[in-house]
């Protein structure tokens, strides 16, 4: 059998180029480990419209016979993957939970990979979850990633006559431009006649220095003016808090971060709030 002699350079170059292109074509379709940039907004692993899908899942399971809304409230999952796994295990051991609310700062650095890692933990829940946008989620390309992966930054749904209004209050990320939070949009949500009670969910509480000071009064006054608005839920502070902050009927509650290993379990029955702290 004749030995293959020294291959000439043009064919070798062609071989090298050819091989690399075949490998490239193979890997692009077969493997999700090829990263274009830590800042990329998309890859083959990224789920889309999680909030919308999860809300649909929740609403399709709604039963007339049970008027109690049971949900877990936590926040700031940023870089707390180990603790998040513990949280999911604990949450799954509790009976009759309808959904989980995550009060923003899903990610720490606004990177796609972080959003994916967090979702990989939370999708293990036996029930749906909804996540509002946090200030860390708006760094780098986080805004684009959140919008694609979770959906609109301001959204709402009504479950057992309780309307949950998720909205963006991360004013500092927009350089306090006067449009965040979106006061007119929030007002419109309150005019919904299909709901009996209203609950606000956002990351930065109105009394924090990252909230637009020029909008603080308009924001809290709008909630206070509506007696069916009963509860305002927030994250950001990495501290538990439960108080009537302003001289009105609205109760403001802030949650610990996922890393602090304690979440809240809420039960709402006809606008009545009861809550329990649960360690994990």
């Amino acid at each position, binding site marked *: 059998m004749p030995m293959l002699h*020294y*291959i*000439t*350079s*043009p064919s*070798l*170059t062609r*071989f*090298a*180029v050819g*091989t*690399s292109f075949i*490998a*490239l074509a193979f*890997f*692009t379709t077969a*493997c999700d*480990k*090829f*990263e*274009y*940039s*830590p*800042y*990329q*907004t*998309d*890859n083959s692993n990224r789920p889309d419209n999680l909030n919308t899908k999860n809300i649909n899942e929740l609403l399709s399971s709604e039963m007339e016979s049970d008027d109690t809304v049971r949900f877990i409230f936590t926040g700031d999952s940023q*870089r*707390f*993957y*180990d603790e*998040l*796994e513990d949280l999911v295990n604990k949450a799954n051991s509790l009976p009759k939970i309808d959904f989980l609310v995550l009060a923003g700062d899903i990610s*720490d*650095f606004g*990177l*796609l*990979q*972080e959003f994916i*890692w967090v979702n990989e*933990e939370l999708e293990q829940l036996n029930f749906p979850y909804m996540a509002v946008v946090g200030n860390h989620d708006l*760094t*780098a*390309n*986080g*805004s*684009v990633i959140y919008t694609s992966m979770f959906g609109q930054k301001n959204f709402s749904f009504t479950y057992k006559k309780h309307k949950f209004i998720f909205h963006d209050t991360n004013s*500092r*990320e927009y*350089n*306090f431009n006067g449009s965040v939070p979106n006061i007119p949009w929030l007002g419109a949500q309150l005019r919904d006649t299909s709901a009996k009670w209203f609950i606000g969910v956002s990351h930065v509480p109105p009394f924090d220095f990252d909230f637009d000071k020029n909008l603080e009064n308009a924001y809290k006054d709008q909630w206070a003016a509506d007696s069916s608005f009963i509860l305002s839920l927030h994250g950001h502070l990495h501290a538990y808090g439960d108080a009537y902050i302003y001289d009105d009927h609205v109760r403001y509650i802030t949650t610990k971060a996922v890393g602090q290993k304690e979440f809240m379990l809420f039960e709402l029955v006809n606008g009545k709030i009861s809550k329990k702290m649960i360690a994990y």
Partner: protein
Amino acid sequence: MKRIVCLSILSFVLNDLQAQTLRRNTSYGIQYAGSVGFLSGGLYKHNAKDKLSIGLIYGFTPKNVGGPLGSLSLKVRYNPFHIKVYRNLSVEPLQVGFFLAQNFGKNIDFKWGGNYPKGYYWWGSSFRQHAFFSTQISLALPKGYFSKAALYLEANTNDLYIYSYFSNRNTISLYDIFFLGIGTRFYLREKPITKKTYHRCYDTLD
């Protein structure tokens, strides 16, 4: 893309101008993925046996695959083992190194904006430090413009992923934080300065 073309043309012109000095120990690289762009191109200088090399790489990621993003990186690679397998085919089983990447993009701020108090976010907004290891096969080319062509597969991670890994030893594995790239390197053949080179040099200057 324009930048890659310009850089390449510039380096080719320079190579003609100072054929012997600049062509020595030089290689060009094209890479797919590897966290510096969907596609990237680089110019490398290395020592005699390519044991140590340093390269300047520009990469871009188009909009439809998660961009638009750009990056400019400086890459240092140590390549200690060269194993000749068969005639002109060699295997270089392991390279290690690092690259420093400045990222560009519409939402990637060069520095944190004035809307934040000092130290509000502690990590760099657009500058990433990566560590990598890779493996490559190379072919010595008997004649032509290039003396050697190499094909490598590389795995890298960055400062923020490493930081995430260390505080989450149960849920985040090393496999989770390393991401791949595949690329080729073409090593320029050293050539003595010929009359033709001088003519081409003058043509370029005209």
